[in-house]
């Protein structure tokens, strides 16, 4: 972070904080860790979240789940689009943060931020379409109305990609919340600042508090309690290495979390719907259709 601005004024540093339940707490542990740019220059002291912070985030995410999953798909789409609007307005800040975090030139970082904003727009459009694509009526062999509908799995822990600190982050978070899940996100360990700043954007985008919770710190410290947490329904292991991913998958089996294993992803490509369907359940409802004969309706 530059010491002096262009007009030689001493700049005001930002204290980066966690984003939990719509608020910006420091880690309850009081710990921070140094975040540097790709050349090793100090950027900030980021909060080093603890297991307790992770548990608090799960509580916040669970609390937010009812209203968020119960919101209309149209409303969720509007809010995701609002996030894109808010990001657009803070584009310069994120270009700087992504350039620092990932060692990119201004123009390359600009392309990353543009793609990230567009990703929110892409998922904003999906909220009220995914149910039509993956749900539908089933022609059962009997007098029954039978409809399958996708529903959000619940609280999803997301281990965000380690390298793609902003585009990768949004590429894994947006599909989780687009369908009505709530998320506890562990930001890239070495480059958490874009994620923490994203929290500030989410807080001003009409996104209800607790829908997305952002933690920074040591992935290997925060991820295991989330993977083992009995009130977390699913986990995206995008940012876990093979050894950690296996450990987390084993812990996740305790309450049969849905697990999305790490896989090679080119985040600049337009995504498919896999990251949404990974965290959707299918509910199938049956009802007799009855018959309108002389005898009236019948079951």
């Amino acid at each position: 972070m530059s010491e002096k601005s262009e007009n030689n004024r001493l700049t005001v540093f930002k204290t980066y904080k966690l984003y939990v339940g719509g608020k910006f707490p420091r880690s309850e542990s009081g710990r921070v860790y140094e975040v540097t740019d790709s050349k090793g220059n100090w950027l900030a002291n980021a909060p080093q979240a603890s297991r307790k912070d992770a548990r608090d985030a799960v509580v916040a995410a669970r609390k937010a789940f009812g209203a968020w999953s119960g919101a209309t798909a149209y409303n969720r789409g509007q809010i995701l689009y609002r996030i894109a609007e808010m990001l657009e307005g803070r584009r310069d800040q994120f270009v700087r943060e992504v350039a620092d975090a990932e060692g990119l030139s201004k123009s390359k970082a600009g392309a990353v931020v543009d793609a990230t904003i567009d990703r929110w727009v892409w998922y904003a459009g999906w909220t009220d379409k995914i149910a039509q694509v993956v749900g539908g009526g089933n022609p059962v062999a009997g007098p029954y109305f039978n409809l399958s509908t996708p529903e959000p799995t619940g609280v999803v822990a997301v281990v965000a990609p380690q390298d793609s600190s902003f585009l990768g982050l949004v590429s894994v978070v947006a599909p989780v919340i687009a369908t009505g899940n709530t998320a506890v996100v562990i930001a890239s360990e070495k480059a958490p600042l874009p994620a923490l700043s994203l929290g500030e954007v989410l807080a001003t985008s009409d996104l209800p508090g607790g829908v997305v919770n952002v933690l920074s710190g040591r992935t290997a410290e925060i991820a295991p309690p989330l993977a083992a947490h009995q009130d977390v329904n699913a986990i995206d292991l995008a940012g876990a290495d093979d050894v950690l991913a296996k450990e987390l998958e084993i812990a996740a089996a305790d309450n049969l979390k849905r697990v999305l294993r790490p896989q090679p992803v080119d985040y600049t490509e337009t995504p498919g719907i896999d990251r949404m369907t990974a965290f959707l359940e299918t509910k199938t409802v049956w009802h007799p259709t009855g018959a309108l004969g002389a005898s009236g309706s019948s079951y």
Partner: protein
Amino acid sequence: MAPVFEYAPAPESRAIVDIAPSYGLFIDGEFVESSGEDRNKTISPATEEVLAEYTQATEEDVDRAVKAARKAFGKWSALPGSERAKYLFRIARIIQERSRELAVLETLDNGKPIKETRDVDLPLVAAHFFYYAGWADKLEHAGFGPSPRPLGVAGQVIPWNFPLLMLAWKIAPALATGNTVVLKPAETTPLSALFFADICRQAGLPKGVVNIVTGDGRTGAALVAHPDVNKVAFTGSTAVGKEIARTIAGTRKKLTLELGGKGANIVFDDAPIDQAVEGIVNGIFFNQGQVCCAGSRLLVQESIQDELLESLKRRLSTLRLGDPLDKNTDIGAINSAEQLARITALADQGEAEGAERWSPACELPSSGYWFAPTLFTNVTQAHTVARDEIFGPVLSVLTFRTPDEAVAKANNTPYGLSAGVWTEKGSRILAVANKLRAGVVWSNTFNKFDPTSPFGGYKESGFGREGGRHGLEAYLDV
């Protein structure tokens, strides 16, 4: 209530089934001997008569079966979908032709009433193959991308409650999508899977596409852990499901699990009582309650509790328990001594914890494994009989006052497989169905199944769906 007329015995003839004294393993298109010496016996749970001996497949046998499936995979997956479809259509037709034989066989080996195997299991088995046969040459239209690919070798482990139906749920979509399979039937009900091997031969299915290995949990564990298996599909207990999930952690194996349940059947005060009573009976006494999606918790609105329970008890008094081969039998035998012991222990615990136990006057046969239909009233959510899956003909009755309370109680379980809602009010059905965290919601009906209808759970009832378009995903590289 004394019956006006006694029923005369009406047994289905078992002459239609020719059970061999001993069975090997079906690997690479033929029955072969095991590398080991261990043999198990499968018995008729209604009489404890030994039906046949079968093989306890060893790790080496499992490896042989996986190798055969791997060898067959290349050609099978490369076949035009329309050709794979025709094999599956053939299988569906042969099952229809042999359905009486298979129904009797299943009733003998499992203990369930012939009216269920004949009218539910077998028609659904044939329909499942017929349904997925039609998908085999239409996968590019299924919504999984332009050219979805099979996974490879599927290791499939199935339970004893619907032996042939669970085989169909596993094998039909796997083959339609171009996978080859190694399937392990349950240790107490291996026979219908071994008969299915013969159906594969009659259908001319290429060697190695379907392999059947029999044995207990050790065989299943070896199959699940085999490094050359690409896909694991399991139906069974939640405890074993969790163990499998741990076993395959860190691999690339795709996993689907269909596990236990503690389904709530919610009856509102405006429900049609007679239909609801039929649905409750069907929900918990179908297949002796040995159904993962059973409606084992009855949630009845307080104002109609007395009326409903009176009707329910009257109805239960008319259920006929006995010889599963008798066409008039409603309640057959419990599948095994072990399962009977588990049901007995949980029911005793219910009584010990203070719930009120009731069963109709019901004479149990002197040999075999039997459990009378049982109701528990004065049950609270803390009672074991309201929390644990009993997997037997035991219904726990709880009450509620408001729809919110009904939903909260229904969802108060780590499971999430099925639920029922009974009310005449359409908006209430939709509101309650929307709030229930369960994969299948039956409204004003219960325990209905169809090959086109996706089935599977939320939460600890597992993940993945079987049936319908959704069921293809489990076997495709998507």
